[in-house]
């Protein structure tokens, strides 16, 4: 059984439904890429799994989220709190929002293990320093005693990863963990995360808009568009044979080495606002393959010749 199963969740915030039927599964030792433009529902999906929707006045109105046999939808907050940080950890885009600027780095990592694993102060510190070394943080002892402002962005993000790992979680949700970083640092951080998944059998849900990062790190990919799943497949298949025109266009947006000048086009228009989602397939106003049917009928998310997709223009396979 998969470690995490998200099954057709609908998320409502007031009278709006920004997520409408998102499904995927994630196994141990696997990296799942969740991709899409801003406004596609990537971060909301992360918040749903983390049980953080109440913070923004949202809730899961239907569908199920199961983590290791536990039903997360409707789980009481005290029980959620025992999972969060302990078994499910979050790495956010901006490390500064995860670190307290007036508390020393070390104390912030230590308290995770003290709180969740019941370790004493010294054992927690030894554990933190060991983790920092594994994350290739130089002079771990010195950095353990520093404040966040004394560190570079890449180093701060490593500290946030150390905090996420401190209680030895089973699942890490990483929301654009390298978007704010320089490329050489991004490459290092992504490599560290891939190594961790392989060595510890962690499950990683990697939210990103960067198809380069997806190709480099992920095993499976879910493409979201305007609150729905457009396509899901293995990373190799999704790049080799994308079934949804949105996936195809998204891949084409990144210039390849040696691409001819004038051939980069982008996707016309923009992701619609949750307040005026179009009828039928939500991508149809921007889609070059749109059929008359696409404007009236919502495509079913079904098995295709390769993987699963929700598109009228791609042929279904009925088993």
């Amino acid at each position: 059984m998969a470690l995490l199963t998200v099954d057709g969740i609908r998320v409502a915030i007031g009278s709006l439904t920004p997520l409408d039927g998102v499904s995927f599964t994630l196994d141990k030792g696997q990296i799942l890429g969740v991709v899409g433009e801003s406004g596609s529902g990537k971060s909301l999906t992360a918040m749903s799994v983390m049980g953080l929707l109440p913070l923004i006045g949202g809730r899961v109105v239907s569908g199920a989220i199961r983590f290791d046999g536990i039903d997360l939808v409707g789980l009481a907050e005290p029980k959620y709190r025992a999972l969060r940080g302990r078994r499910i950890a979050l790495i956010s885009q901006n490390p500064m929002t995860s670190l307290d600027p007036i508390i020393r780095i070390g104390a912030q990592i230590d308290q995770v293990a003290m709180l969740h694993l019941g370790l004493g102060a010294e054992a927690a510190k030894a554990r933190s320093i060991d983790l920092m070394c594994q994350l290739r943080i130089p002079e771990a002892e010195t950095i353990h005693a520093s404040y966040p402002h004394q560190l570079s962005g890449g180093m701060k993000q490593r500290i946030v990863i150390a905090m996420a790992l401190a209680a030895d979680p089973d699942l890490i949700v990483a929301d654009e963990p390298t978007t704010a970083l320089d490329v050489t640092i991004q490459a290092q951080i992504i490599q560290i995360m891939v190594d961790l998944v392989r060595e510890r059998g962690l499950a990683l849900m990697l939210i990103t808009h960067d198809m380069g990062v997806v190709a480099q790190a992920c095993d499976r990919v879910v493409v979201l568009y305007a609150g729905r799943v457009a396509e899901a497949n293995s990373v190799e298949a999704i790049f080799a044979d994308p079934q949804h025109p949105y996936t195809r266009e998204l891949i084409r947006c990144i210039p390849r080495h040696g691409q001819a000048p004038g051939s980069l086009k982008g996707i016309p228009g923009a992701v619609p606002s949750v307040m005026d989602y179009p009828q039928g397939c939500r991508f149809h106003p921007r889609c070059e393959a749109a059929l008359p049917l696409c404007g009236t009928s919502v495509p079913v998310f079904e098995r295709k010749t390769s993987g699963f997709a929700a598109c009228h223009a791609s042929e279904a396979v009925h088993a």
Partner: protein
Amino acid sequence: MPDADTFVAMNGLTREYVSSKGLFGPTRSMRAVNDVSLDVPRGKVTGVVGESGCGKSTLARLVLRLIDATAGTVMVNGVDLGTLSAGALRKLRRDMQMVFQDPYSAIDPRYSIRRALEEPFRVQGVRLDKGVIEDLTAKVGLSPRMIESFPHQLSGGQKQRVGIARALALKPSFLVLDEPTASLDVSIQAQIIGLLEELKQDLGLTYLFISHDLSLVRYFCDRIVVMYLGRIVEILPNARATSRHHYSRTLMESHFEPDPARRKLVTRLAGEIPSPFNLPQGCAFAARCTAASELCRRERPLLETHADGHQVACHHPAD
């Protein structure tokens, strides 16, 4: 003496910043841009690439004299910018404009798009003919009904189109593009790059394109300048040339291609980026470089010209 094909010629350009530790503490200085000499050829796209803190944005501002140089000169069409009076400089600025990274802060939120586009004419005292604003918005692909709207009603991509329209208002021949797509989604980034390519073709513009994104620079630029800690370390004569400086190579290897078949093997970078306030005596990259020798730590390599105008500042350039 720069020839007629050179639009901008920078010579020994340096910008120093001084900071003090506390109110009465000792002062220390760093050179954000350090002795940079670079020609920007007319009608071409010159790309400047590097990570945060390499000085690329400071260089962009120096070229337009938005900030003053500590040393060195910028010649535009054979005129030394440093010798110009404020009035003469303002007049020259009609011919050279900038597109900023953040379209959100580049436009006054209280101005309608029409008023934002009329501003350059007002500032420069240029007569505004009927239909000019309509032509401008059409040129950047904005629909006429947006002219009377306000920035908050526009998406990020549309705002950046307004930023480009404003830069083009007075028919300049040179644009400095300072990370114009860094805050946009990849799909919108590709749209904007496509637009910039078209405008360059139609209007015969010269671009200085500042970016941290190597795939974009390689796609978009005729010539690639790599900066590290304030200095130029390499100039690639064309986008197909193979880099020979070890830092440029690291930069290229850190870039993930959108293709799972071409995953990169990320090697661990030894050492840390030196503090710009306390640069080493020799090559600034030596601490992180696998090819560094005693010579590199002792003596800073100068930018030397190899075959095809390929320039490298390295004692042991790769083949």
